[in-house]
């Protein structure tokens, strides 16, 4: 487990450009020579995308609620209706 967590931390540092030149070269070498390591790095990149996607979905739901709330305000609702009339 310790090695697994270490590799994940290392991958995070590599993705955010925080590794030294030497560490970056070692990382790149492992990516080229260890298919399992390459796969884990790619999956970690995908994970960040899923986290971002889900956070955006939550935000979109909140914005939908906000829109519905504002459309209950007569002045705001009238203004928007006039724009599209």
């Amino acid at each position, binding site marked *: 487990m310790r090695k*697994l*967590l270490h590799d*994940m*931390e290392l991958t995070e540092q590599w993705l955010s450009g925080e590794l030294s030149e030497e560490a970056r070269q070692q990382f790149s070498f492992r990516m080229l020579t260890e298919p399992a390591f390459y*796969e*884990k790095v*790619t*999956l*970690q*990149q*995908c*994970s*960040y*995308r*899923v*986290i*971002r*996607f*889900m*956070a*955006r979905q*939550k*935000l*979109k739901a*909140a*914005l*939908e609620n*906000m*829109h519905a*709330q*504002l459309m209950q*305000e007569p002045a*705001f609702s009238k*203004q*928007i209706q006039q*724009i*599209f009339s």
Partner: protein
Amino acid sequence: METQTAPEMLQLYRETFPAVAAMLRDLGADPESAKDLFHDALIIYLEKHHAGTLHIDHTPAAYLKGIARNLWRRSFRHQLPLTSLDEPSAEELYYEENQQDQYLITTSLLHLLQTTGKKCMQLLQAFYYDQQNMEEIATQFQFSSSRSATVQKFKCLEKLRAQLKNSVLYEEVVA
């Protein structure tokens, strides 16, 4: 990280949506697509705000109009590959990801949520999207220390990574 509160967000929405909607109407958008594009623009705006990459010499309304205009134009070029030699803009990246990640809604998203666990996803979002630091996260999620929170964060990430291995998204990325 500085985040906007719900009342601030509501105020921003109230003040900027009419101007953005009017501009999008002139481009040919209907009310529903204007609302959707405005929401996408707001998300990009908030992400830039969190990342500290907003130019302070532009008003929020000017920013949101610019982003929404770019998203509108991008939506008509969705079948064309990106050919520019320049770095893709935030709007381009957002649009591309949004298109590809729609798979998640209909495929593995629910399964991922159920198996990775709600608390894990909240923790991952707090760190990676909301950019809270580990001390804040340790307090919020009741860990004894920031190190414990960090270890838990990586365990959650490993759970998600394992779940993703057989997903459509991963197949698409490695294809």
